[in-house]
């Protein structure tokens, strides 16, 4: 049963961000605005960096604006101009990534001007960009969303939005996997990781994968075999999941960009849940100075240690 999602907010948000971006650029407050422009396919959107006020009139916010723009502010993306303040449009899921980056000292809060985007939901990557937004076509991450109105932005258009209501797909799938025997889980993941072609799109799109030299690119010592064979693929994905534990913002971009449809966000959601249970940690809108795996308490659980 698919529920229709109210999409009337998009045009109001679009109008608000156009005027805000034009104001910022014309006044010289920022040197660039990172937002979405229409792309070639009907209804689709693409990330863009605009630098002049007349380009601001083309910015959009639509159900196709699923990309997490925070990735363009990381040090891994050297093409983005780093001069002056930069404005960025961000949905709630993107704001968690920004908060995480600020917490890890990758960004200064004063260097960015956040334009919050009240968001009713975005389309899943398997849906056609011009499809109607319903609880069936909406991205899985939107069904987990509690904050349609971003918190802590410098400018948030006052637009009412309602969250897409529906059962969480990730929770259902994680529960299904947890109910399996270890051998069944192993064959599930073996089948999934056998598909991997090591394109590293998941790494390139992730705001938290900004290491100058990725561990998988080191060959002295080589911890992860680079050929796209199941053994190396498993090592790659496990290591990426553990490196993201306690940092992942849940933007699900990794899953969206994977050309082989590997359910990568399942691993990240599972780890997020475990860290919430173990150390009461959640990716939030407030930058946290130390992540759960960067800090400790003397009374941490050690029931698994002899």
């Amino acid at each position, binding site marked *: 049963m698919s529920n229709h999602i109210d999409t009337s907010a998009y045009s109001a948000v679009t109008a608000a961000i156009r005027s805000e971006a034009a104001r910022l650029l014309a006044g010289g407050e920022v040197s660039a605005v990172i937002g979405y422009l229409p792309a070639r396919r009907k209804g689709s959107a693409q990330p863009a960096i605009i630098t002049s006020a007349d380009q601001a009139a083309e910015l959009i916010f639509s159900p196709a604006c699923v990309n997490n723009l925070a990735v363009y502010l990381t040090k891994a993306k050297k093409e983005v101009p780093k001069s002056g303040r930069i404005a960025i449009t961000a949905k709630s899921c993107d704001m968690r990534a920004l908060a995480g980056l600020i917490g890890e000292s990758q960004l200064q809060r004063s260097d960015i001007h956040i334009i919050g985007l009240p968001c009713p939901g975005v389309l899943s990557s398997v849906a056609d960009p011009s499809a109607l937004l319903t609880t069936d076509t909406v991205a899985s991450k939107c069904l987990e969303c509690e904050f349609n109105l971003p918190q802590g932005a410098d400018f948030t258009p006052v637009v009412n939005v309602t969250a897409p209501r529906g059962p969480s797909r990730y929770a259902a799938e994680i529960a299904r*996997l*947890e109910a*399996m025997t*270890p*051998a*069944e*889980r*192993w*064959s*599930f*993941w*073996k089948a999934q990781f*056998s598909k991997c072609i090591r394109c590293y799109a998941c790494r390139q799109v992730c705001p938290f994968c900004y290491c100058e030299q990725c*561990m998988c690119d080191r060959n002295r010592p080589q*911890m*992860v075999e680079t*050929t*796209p*064979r*199941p*053994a190396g693929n*498993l*090592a790659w994905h*496990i*290591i990426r*999941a*553990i490196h993201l*534990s*306690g940092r992942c913002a849940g933007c699900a971009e990794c899953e969206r960009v994977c050309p082989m449809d590997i359910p990568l966000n399942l*691993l990240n959601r*599972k*780890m997020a849940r*475990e*860290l919430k249970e*173990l*150390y009461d940690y959640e990716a939030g809108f407030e930058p946290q100075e130390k992540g*759960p*795996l*960067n*800090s*400790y308490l*003397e009374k*941490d*659980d*050690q029931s*698994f*240690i*002899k």
Partner: protein
Amino acid sequence: MHPEKAKHDFEPKIIAFVCTWCTYAGADLAGTSRMQYPANVRVLKFPCTGRIDPAFILKAFQQGADGVLISGCHPGDCHYISGNFHARRRFAAFRKLLEFIGVDLSRIQFSWVSAAEGGKWVEVVTDLTERVRSLGPMQEFRELALEEQWSGAINTPELQEIYDQI
């Protein structure tokens, strides 16, 4: 003087990642005290459990280990003050990840063994060795390493269907 060593069909390979200051010294004490324990364990010395990267556990299994032991100083006794606290959190998280992937957690053991606890070292190693012996060789990673990437052959009905559509 020494009890007859039992002959077994399967001798598991146990890799132990230990910290220099406590567990390695504890294992050394077990040795100088002439305590007998299974010789299946291969000890890798690290300055601290905080140095042990979860990737090492994966690598150990990939290289043929049947069981992995990680052992360090008791909380509060770390030579580097807080290394074992960080390791404790890191491995709590990593265990959950491995469990979710389908790795048998009974092949991995964590312990705190101090420099004076030669007896505990013997106990932990013997316990893990016998447990892994009863579980058998770890086939999962071995099979994974033997699997080839897709050979390019159209050998499933789905691939045939897609090929026909082109």
